[in-house]
Every structure is written in structure tokens, then in C-alpha cells.
């Protein structure tokens, strides 16, 4: 086994053994791996099956059901944009469109250079501050960027996302 895959195995095992929930299940184990690695590599499906005494089919069934799991490493930056009804009414569609355009994507997914992963969110839970966008774990809203008018916000957020893409803000 290569050093790389050994390292991966150790990380997965560490997440399963040390970072798992109080009640260990297939789902809790997959979530622990995702928290550790940001995705579920094929190796983790096998190890979770072993660890929870389930079948690969069971584990794969759970992993493919919940939409938070991904199976390839995420891009350097993860951008989540809410398309929920509140944000929709407050201009989310414009933010989605200009972000897709600036990233050269036609739908959610990863940019070719793997710099950015774009994900649509059904609701980020900050509807009262909508429209909101989540960039690398930080929530961005009109208030947080000091603008309250709708269309300026669209440009500003898209601008921030392209800054992220260009590595200006980390």
C-alpha cells in the first residue's frame, strides 16, 4: 500500500474511532468521515461497513441518500448559495446566475481547476438576513457586507466569490 493510501486509511480510522457520535451508526460514521476529509472516499465505504458490521450495500445506500455527502474531494473553496423561497424573493436567482457565470459552470458542481465547489442550498437558516451565501464556512449577507440594496448585493457577492476564486481572500 502506498504511503498516501495508508495516510487516508489512518485518517478514516481515526475519525471512526475517535470522532464518532455517542451512539455509533452507519450515518454517524459517514458524518465523522465527512467532517474529517470533506468527502467520502471509496475506502471509507469499506471501512465504515467493517466498523459498523454492515454491508457495503447498506453503507452505500445511506451515503447516496443524504445530499450532503460527496464522493470526490471538494474544491479549495466551498460556496453554498441558498435558493430557498425567502432568498429567491430577495434576489438569490441573480446571485446564482452571476456566480455560475463567473465560475464558468452551468449547474452546481466543481470548477475544472478544482478551485471552487458550488453547491445549492435549500435554506441556510438565515432567512431573516437573506439573500445569504455561505463561503468557506462563513455566512455572507447584505448586512455583513454593508449594503442593503438588492442589485448591488448581487454584484458584491459575485465579486467576493471571484475574489475567493482568485485566492485574494482566504
Amino acid at each position, binding site marked *: 500500500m502506498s504511503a498516501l493510501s495508508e495516510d487516508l486509511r489512518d485518517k478514516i480510522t481515526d475519525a471512526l474511532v475517535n470522532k464518532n*457520535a*455517542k*451512539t455509533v*451508526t*452507519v*450515518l*454517524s*460514521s*459517514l*458524518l465523522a468521515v*465527512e467532517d474529517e476529509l470533506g468527502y467520502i472516499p*471509496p475506502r471509507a*465505504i*469499506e471501512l465504515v461497513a467493517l466498523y*459498523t458490521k454492515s454491508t*457495503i450495500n*447498506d453503507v*452505500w*445506500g*445511506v451515503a*447516496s*441518500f*443524504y*445530499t*450532503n*455527502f*460527496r*464522493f*470526490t474531494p471538494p474544491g479549495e473553496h466551498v460556496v453554498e448559495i*441558498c*435558493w*430557498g*423561497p*425567502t432568498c*429567491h*424573493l*430577495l434576489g438569490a*436567482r441573480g446571485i*446564482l*446566475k452571476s456566480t*455560475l457565470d463567473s465560475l464558468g459552470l452551468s*449547474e*452546481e458542481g*466543481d470548477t475544472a481547476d478544482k478551485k471552487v465547489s458550488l453547491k*445549492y442550498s*435549500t*435554506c*441556510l*437558516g*438565515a*432567512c*431573516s*438576513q*437573506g439573500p445569504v451565501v455561505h463561503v468557506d464556512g462563513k*455566512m*455572507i*449577507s447584505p*448586512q*455583513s457586507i*454593508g449594503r442593503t440594496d438588492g442589485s448591488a448585493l448581487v454584484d458584491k457577492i459575485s465579486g467576493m466569490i471571484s475574489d475567493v476564486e482568485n485566492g485574494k481572500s482566504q
Partner: protein
Amino acid sequence: MPSFEELLNTAQQKYQELSSGDTPWIRIGTAVCGHAAGSDDVINAISAELEKRGLQANISPVGCIGLCYAEPIVDIVKAGQPRVFFKNVSVDQVPELVDSYLVNNQIPREMALAYSGESSVDGVPSLDSLPMWKHQVRVAMRNCGEIDPTDIYQYIARGGYAALNKAISRMDPSEVVKEVQDSGLRGRGGAAFSTGTKWSFLVGSPGPTKYILCNCEEGDPGAYNDKGILESDPHTLVEGTILAGYATGASNGVVFIRHGHEGPIDRAQKAIDDCYELGLLGDNILGSEFSFHMEVSLTGESYVAGEETALMESVEGKRAMPRFRPPFPAQSGVWGLPTNINNIKTLSYVPEIISKGGEWFSNIGIERSKGTAILCISGNITRPGMIEVPMGITLKEIMEDVAGDAPGGHKLKFLQTGGPLGGVLSASEIDIPLDFEAMAQAGAILGSGGIIAADDRACAVDMTRLLIAFCQYESCGKCFPCRLGMTNLIEILERICKFESRPDDLALMRSVGQNMAGASLCGHGQLGWNPVQSALKFFPEEFEEHMEQKICRTGQCDGLMITPQRTRSRWTSAQPLELRI
């Protein structure tokens, strides 16, 4: 372990020191609304500014006081001065705020939102007089924005765990059930079933291991009150759950939250840990015979995981797909054991009901719908936020007095209530009381309390399409009326929005919708027709325009529809899975 009296003494002492103002006490909203508005940066800026000037202050991150439109809110108590709330504080304003108020005792009026307390402040309104505070009666939200949710002593100092102490030392479990029954409390998760009655089912089930599940899946877009309570006052939920356990003879409580919402998850976990440390959870709670254990269980992203039997599957670590009933949860729930499931808001009322009595609670609200409603108001309004108002108040009062007008002179067009399975309600029909039955009769359910306001720029057909896009995306796929029906509905609605509808599309939607309502396994499919039906009821002419005249009066339907791919597993196609076993 300390006795309750010892805990209370310590708590009161600490709280006295904090709130006397000798060292200024600065509270900053750090629920998700605060975070989104930039509260982290404001906290850092305040700490840096204090350090720079060599000033002392106690900074407490608090939850959401409900005035989300004014976040980040900085709330300052200092000796000899009134308590003042400052609104929309930005990092740039921090030096001025510290300089004027903390150093020079001058209130920068343009930044002040309100004052609270005895002595008034010229040119600044009192908290009680704010439009958003009008009508509010705070029961479950009594501590929201008041206390540091990570400090159990602040909760105890404000009356926390007194209800638990009272129940354990002076009440029989059956009296606790009776108190909840007398209160008239009905579930706040959607179905509005009597909580006392639900609990009594579990009482009769055999032990020793029985579960209380606290449902904080909260996948409804536009609703953030369950997460809001966990972020602002997790102990009220924990105490409510322990009381439910005592009343029903349950042994275990599980708080069920969606992965990724760190605020509610971390604060619920901290609350549980602190309770174990102080003997409020675990074996022999407060020295009594009663033992109860609690943990947090996380779920992945799935809306249907909030449905009670799907939630049990998810707690067991499986795909969140609903089960057949019977057996009912009280007989065979999670892990095949007797289970009771309640919404976070429902359980959060319980401590106050036990402290003040069921009758006290039943005096709030109206005949069929007792107590208060915890609402999230958002969309095209002046004051989005989270409020707690007595049942029976009208939606019109809420929109006009509390929420305020749509910005830019636009007019309210419709409300979307009860989440994506709820409906839309035309602005002309909102003079109805907040009451489970009256709302359902009008075609819009109260559901989990999300109210989204849309003004005249919004298209009713486009909103319907968006809601069904959500329902289709979230269908778990277990039963075909919903799995295929939702797909049919979204295909037709997209055709209508692209002005490509076929003549019999409305009839087709109706037939699909009725079949879904009658034949689906769970509420998701059964209620999925609601949003379309209610939009057709209030805005038939807009459907007609899209279908016959091929126009959208608002211009929203311009062909651009950005919604997720229609499959539950969106990343799978990226790489085929190579397994080596």
C-alpha cells in the same frame, strides 16, 4: 452533586455580579442571524478596542432576541446607565460606540435601537414600544437574547430547572402529564396533536428503555425557530425533555439536528454536557430515584428526515425513509422501543407550563389553539425576525404592526406559510386568526411557523414552481405516488413557467395531485399538492395568463430556473465507485 438550592445560590450570585453593571456587560447576538450579519467581526473589533484602551467588560455571546433586522445587535448594561441596544453595528462603528458610551456615557443616538429598564433615554424608544415587540408574549422565548446559551448558571438564575426540581420533588409523573394536558398544548411541528395525549400513549408502554425524540430537523425553508431556540436557550429544551421523560417514564432523550448547523449542535451538546456535570442529567437526577440520559444525534441533509418515522430510521443510521404505521411510535419506535416524538418548540414550553401551571398557559391564546405561536417572518418586509405572539392574533396584525411594509413602496401580494408543504395565502385573505384550524381552512397551514411575505414583484406561478421543485428534490422515493407525482408536477409547472404548457395541464396536475394526496405513504406526498392547490385557488388568473396568453405579468418567468438536479445523490455521477472487496 450539588443540591438544587446550592445551584440556585451560585447562579444568583454569578448573575448578580454580571448584571449589576459594575463591570459593563456587553451582550452580542450570535445566532445564525447574527453570524450572517457579521457579529463575529464585531465581537473581535469590540474586544480589540477594549484592550487598546485598557477597559474591562464582560462580553457574552447571546442568541437571537428576535429583532433579526437589527443584527448585529450590541446590548450594553453598565452601572448608573440604562440598558441600551445598538442596531446594525458594523466594525467601523465600534470605536465610536466604545468611545461614546463606554468611556463618556454618551449614547450615540443614531446607533441606538432601544433602551430597556426604568430610566428613559431621550430620543430613543423603549424596547417594549418597538413595533416588533408589540403583541409579543414570551414563554418559550423568554430567555432568547437575554442569556449566554453556553452558561447554565445564567439559565438557572432566571428560573431555569426550577420546574424540574418542582416536578421531581413534589409531583407524581401523572400530575406532570395532567398539567400538560390541562394546558391545551398542541404540537408545534406541524400536525398540532395534543401533547398531553401523545405523552399518555407512552406512559402505558412497557419500559425500562423508552425514548423521547426532540425534532430539530427543521428543513422547512423560511423556518429557523427550532434552531433559533437551540442557539439562544438550549436549556429550555433540555429541561422540557427531562420533564417529558419524567412524566412518561422514559429513560433516554435524543436531540435530532441536521449536520452542518454548528450553532444549534454545539450549544445543545454543551447544555447536555453541563447538565451531566451538575447532576441534572444522568443517574439519580438531583438526588432522586429518577434517571434520564440525553444525547445529540445528527442527520444528513434530507427534508423527509423530519417526518417522525423517517427520523427514527435516521437515528438508527439508515436512509431517512418513513415507516409504515402501525406499529405506532409509542409501541415500537426507535430501535423498536417505545418512543415519543415532539418538536423543539413544543418541548420548550414545558418548563414554564410546569412552573406556572397548565391553567396559566391555557389562558393565553384562544379556544382551540392555546398558548403562543413562535413565528419566523421573512421576505419582502421591513422587519424580518423571530417573534412569539399569542394564538388568535390575526395574520393581518402581524404583517401590518410587526413585519412592516414591503420596501420600496411595493404592496404585499401573498404569504407563504407552513413551509413548502403549506400553501400561499393571498394578501386579501390575511385577516384570519392565528389558529391551527382557521389557517388550515383558509388553505395555508401554520406548520412550523415560517411566514414568508412576497410583494407585487413576485409571481405566484413562479413561487409554486419553486416550492414544488423543493418537494420534488426532497421526495425520499420510497413510494411511487410521491416520487413520480412530484416529478410530474414539477415538469408541468416548469412548462407553464416557460409558456409551453399543454391545454390539459391543469387537469393533469389536479389528477396527479389528488392521487398523491390519497395514496402517498407519508405527509410529504400527502400534502405536496397543497401549494399548487392554494396558488390555483387565489391566483387562477396568473396561471391563465401563463398558459393562454403566454405572459408573466411580473417578468419573473424569463426562462431562467436554477434548481438542483433531480436526483437525491448529486455528486455520484462524478466518479464511479471502485470497491475492492
